[in-house]
């Protein structure tokens, strides 16, 4: 049944991808990208990867569409079609496809318990999580504690990406021209206004739930940061850019981006100060298991703050310019 669902959704995914590549209208491409993301999340979910599916849902459903549209507002909405070099590109792609298909012959069957990925460290994680950390969601245990270094690296990747976008888009501050209707956001449209204000508190509440419930169900800092950022972007769309920037000034956003990464690092350094290793949370409390749980909560908070700040400041960097 999993195979059936998977094949069906993957076929739709390929169709959508081909359509995205073929359409010259970039707005259509953005709309199809939204469908691509939805299909991808459904696929992850069918394969039982709920945490990944939630990340895709949180980022793909709201934030990417908004940022793509903001980028589109700054450029043309039609792709300039180039005719040269297409055969060469087609050749490279075809060869890559053949090599990839050849490589899948060596791949173990989906769900095979003897596959190397299930034989390596995964059994150890599954065995040790209840003993060492005692939380039901093993994914959070792996991300937050066993592979804390990797997650720290990811947080710094988010930080660097945010700095990069700020450098490119914020290089020359846009002229402060007098602005007309668009400054108002969607304030004078009654239906989005009412529905959006109704939804806003629930989105924030759900984000906080995902943030602090990540040890028990699917979720964690990355997903929660994206969901809360989506809620605040909804606020910015409804009330207009200046109202949103007044609510959370750009400097606060940048402080959030850097502060989250700093919080994560400080939790790691605290481990050293208290006599353990870097990112060893066991020493944070007299009971090592409680210490692990406190450490994971704190680093997840750091991740959430960084992701939320980064997404929001990228959104504002685009929105201020148009």
């Amino acid at each position: 049944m999993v195979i059936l669902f998977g094949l069906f959704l993957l076929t739709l995914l390929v169709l959508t991808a081909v359509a995205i590549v073929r359409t010259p209208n970039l707005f259509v491409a953005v709309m199809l990208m939204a469908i691509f993301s939805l299909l991808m999340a459904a696929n992850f979910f069918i394969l039982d990867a709920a945490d990944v599916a939630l990340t895709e849902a949180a980022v793909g459903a709201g934030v990417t569409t908004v940022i793509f549209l903001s980028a589109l507002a700054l450029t043309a909405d039609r792709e300039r079609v180039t005719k040269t070099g297409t055969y060469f590109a087609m050749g490279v792609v075809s060869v890559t496809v053949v090599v990839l298909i050849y490589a899948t012959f060596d791949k173990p069957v989906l769900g095979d318990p003897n596959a190397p990925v299930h034989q390596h460290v995964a059994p150890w994680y599954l065995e040790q999580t209840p003993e060492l950390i005692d939380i039901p969601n093993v994914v959070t245990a792996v991300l937050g504690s066993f592979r804390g270094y990797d997650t720290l690296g990811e947080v710094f990747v988010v930080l660097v990406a945010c700095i990069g976008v700020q450098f490119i888009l914020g290089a020359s501050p846009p002229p402060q021209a007098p602005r007309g209707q668009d400054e108002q956001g969607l304030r004078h449209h009654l239906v989005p206004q009412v529905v959006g204000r109704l939804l806003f508190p629930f989105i924030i509440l759900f984000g906080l739930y995902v943030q602090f419930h990540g040890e028990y169900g699917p979720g964690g800092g990355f997903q929660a940061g994206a969901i809360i950022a989506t809620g605040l972007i909804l606020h910015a769309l409804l009330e207009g850019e200046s109202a949103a920037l007044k609510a959370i000034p750009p400097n606060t956003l940048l402080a959030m981006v850097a502060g989250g990464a700093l919080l994560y690092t400080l939790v790691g350094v605290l481990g050293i100060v208290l006599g353990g290793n870097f990112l060893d949370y066991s020493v944070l409390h007299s009971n090592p298991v409680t210490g692990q749980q406190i450490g994971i909560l704190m680093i997840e908070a750091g991740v959430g703050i960084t992701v939320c700040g980064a997404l929001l400041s990228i959104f504002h960097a685009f929105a201020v310019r148009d």
Partner: protein
Amino acid sequence: MFLSASLAILVTMVLALIRALRGPTVYDRVLAVNMFGTKTALLLSVVAFLYGRPDFLDLALAYALINFVGVLAVLEFFQKQSAKPEAGEAQDVDRH
């Protein structure tokens, strides 16, 4: 029962996808994307019960809450485009 429900939802997803791929106007596509999001939320909730893991309903909830924001962004995009001097460009009907 859950299986037949999920298959029915998959069929409607295909129908929405066909509308999104064929257009012809951008409004068809926007509606199709919105409907596709709703269908995904439904599919996730039905499959969560099919797998016997109702706690995965969180994901469907995330979609139900967030899907609206993308459509609002589209609205705002068109509002901005029509406010620009070269208005009408965005309303360009895409036929191909």
